[in-house]
């Protein structure tokens, strides 16, 4: 901007602030730190912050602020030019045991054992696609950072490490090509999910029966895991304090909720057909949000002999934040029962859920997310938030901004009629065939 300025950052973001400034070209920016948090403090308490020391340097805060704006620049601070960033040597040679420790200590893994990406293993993986190993296929930034780029061979290394077979490689390339990382940096602890559709589900022996979301098939286990390894190695994500700031963390980041749709037992169109793909196409669809919740917790979910799953799902969704979408993960038994209730298409159920999952404006305004992210949009006239914020407190409004907030997928082994639901939004669908 050409104007001397001093960022005042709360202490918890010390490393992040220094690294971010450096990545954007100002490694010596004069950053002043305050105690953390500021949120929820009274004016008197904040006065003590201002009169007190910078908790990182120990020097008086305001002295650092004034000096930051007035002490003449050093040579370092005036430097221009381009600095390249090194990621270490192209290969490592050591015993298998020492390499496992080296990859772990370098932050290349999810801290579980990997298959070492030897030349032979990577070349075997590369046979899983017709694309050239050096083709640059995407850009990925695990948050608001300058994105890294990567080649087919880079994706192959992470795929080998995760334990994938070469036949799985096209799915990983499809995911990598979206540039979406599964370890997105925010103080929130986000969860991610992928839906797999098409004949590839059987070709690769995905599990969409009993234990569909659990550790019961190689394709489900390793493809989900590979997404986390790719986010770390290709997008520089997952470095606590630098590119990962999820305060409490999310246990779903280990496998990223891989859902192969049980198209055979479902009474409805498969998910990818709803998105405009042909039934015989192989497609992976990505989701982002907060987590997965089982349906048994919904009100009225057991006693009556003819369970009303639409009402149960609506009750479940009333506990979600409308900032993210609502993904119904229905066991085939639930889907068949819903069809018997009259929902012969996914669209009909989505329409009913959108209209019947409601909240008062007062409740809506009381939710953190709406103030931080939707109120600014309301001020700029973005609907439906602009209207919602003008309505009286007791007015009843939908819990989710649009019908498109809802999505439905069918998976499970029909041992019991339970739905699950994810507070997750649909991101993108990508053809897998393109990467064969």
């Amino acid at each position, binding site marked *: *901007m050409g*104007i*001397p*300025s*001093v960022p005042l*950052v*709360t202490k918890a973001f*010390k*490393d992040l602030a220094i690294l971010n400034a*450096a*990545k*954007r070209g*100002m490694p010596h920016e004069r950053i002043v730190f*305050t105690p*953390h*948090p*500021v*949120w929820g403090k*009274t004016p008197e308490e*904040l*006065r003590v912050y*201002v009169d007190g020391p910078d908790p990182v340097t120990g020097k008086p805060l305001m002295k650092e*602020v004034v000096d930051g*704006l*007035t002490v*003449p620049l050093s040579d370092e*601070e005036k430097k*221009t030019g381009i*600095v*390249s960033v*090194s*990621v*270490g*040597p*192209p*290969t490592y*040679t050591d*015993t*298998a045991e020492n*390499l496992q420790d080296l990859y772990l*200590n*370098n932050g*290349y893994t999810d801290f579980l054992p990997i298959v*070492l*990406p*030897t030349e032979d293993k*990577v070349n075997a993986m590369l046979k899983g696609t017709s694309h050239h190993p050096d083709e640059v296929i995407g850009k990925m930034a695990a948050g608001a950072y300058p994105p*890294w780029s990567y080649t087919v061979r*880079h994706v192959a290394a992470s795929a080998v*490490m995760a334990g994938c077979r070469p036949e799985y490689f096209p799915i990983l390339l499809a995911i990598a090509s979206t540039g979406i990382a599964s370890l997105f940096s925010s103080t929130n602890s986000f969860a991610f999910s992928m839906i797999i559709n098409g004949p590839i589900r059987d070709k690769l022996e995905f599990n969409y029966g009993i234990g569909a979301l659990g550790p019961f098939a190689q394709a489900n286990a390793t493809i989900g895991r590979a997404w986390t*390894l790719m986010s770390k*190695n*290709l*997008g*520089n994500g997952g470095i*606590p*304090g*630098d590119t990962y700031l999820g305060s409490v963390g999310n246990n779903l980041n280990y496998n990223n909720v891989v859902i192969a749709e049980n198209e055979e037992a479902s009474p409805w169109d498969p998910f990818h057909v709803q998105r405009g793909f042909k039934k015989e196409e192989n497609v992976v669809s990505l989701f982002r949000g907060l987590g997965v919740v089982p349906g048994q917790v919904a009100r009225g979910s057991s006693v009556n002999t003819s369970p009303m799953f639409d009402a149960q799902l609506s009750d479940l969704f009333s506990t979600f934040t409308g900032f993210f979408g609502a993904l119904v993960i229905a066991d085939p038994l639930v889907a068949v029962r819903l069809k018997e209730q009259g929902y012969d298409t996914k669209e009909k159920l989505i329409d009913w859920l959108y209209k019947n999952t409601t909240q008062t404006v007062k409740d809506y305004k009381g939710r953190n997310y709406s103030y*931080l992210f939707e109120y*600014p949009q309301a001020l700029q006239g973005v609907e439906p938030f602009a209207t919602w914020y003008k309505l009286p407190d007791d007015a009843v409004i939908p819990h989710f901004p649009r019908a498109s907030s809802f999505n439905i997928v069918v998976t499970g082994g029909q041992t019991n009629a339970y739905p699950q639901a994810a507070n997750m939004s649909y991101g993108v669908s990508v053809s897998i065939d393109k990467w064969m």
Partner: protein
Amino acid sequence: MGMNRRKLLSLIGMSPAILAGATAEAQSKAKNKNGRSGSAAEVKLTALNPRGIPPPITLIPMAPRLATLDGKTVYLVSDGFPGADHFLDQIANWFKKNMPNVTTVYRLKAGGFADDDPKLNAEIKEKGQAVIMAIGH
């Protein structure tokens, strides 16, 4: 997170002298394991570095400092996080008490906390000489 700046910069491979390989200091409890026995375990393998390609960084020179704040106008900018406004009020009070001839102007940056605000930037360039911006939670 007690890393000093130099160590942090080396972390992301910034300082040409130090080979970084993004070794997150916090994670690398370099365990010296090669003492382990086992004959077949001595077989050496070569494995690929899985990292992608980080973008080069264009250095931005910092703006020249002011000789003094006396008589200057300092913009106090909040990125919108809850409590930032109260905090910047206290900064304004401090200036009023300790440097009365510094003019402070409070502004809330438009949009979400990661959005830019060209209109505000233009105003500051025109009417202000310095900026203090509050970021965090």
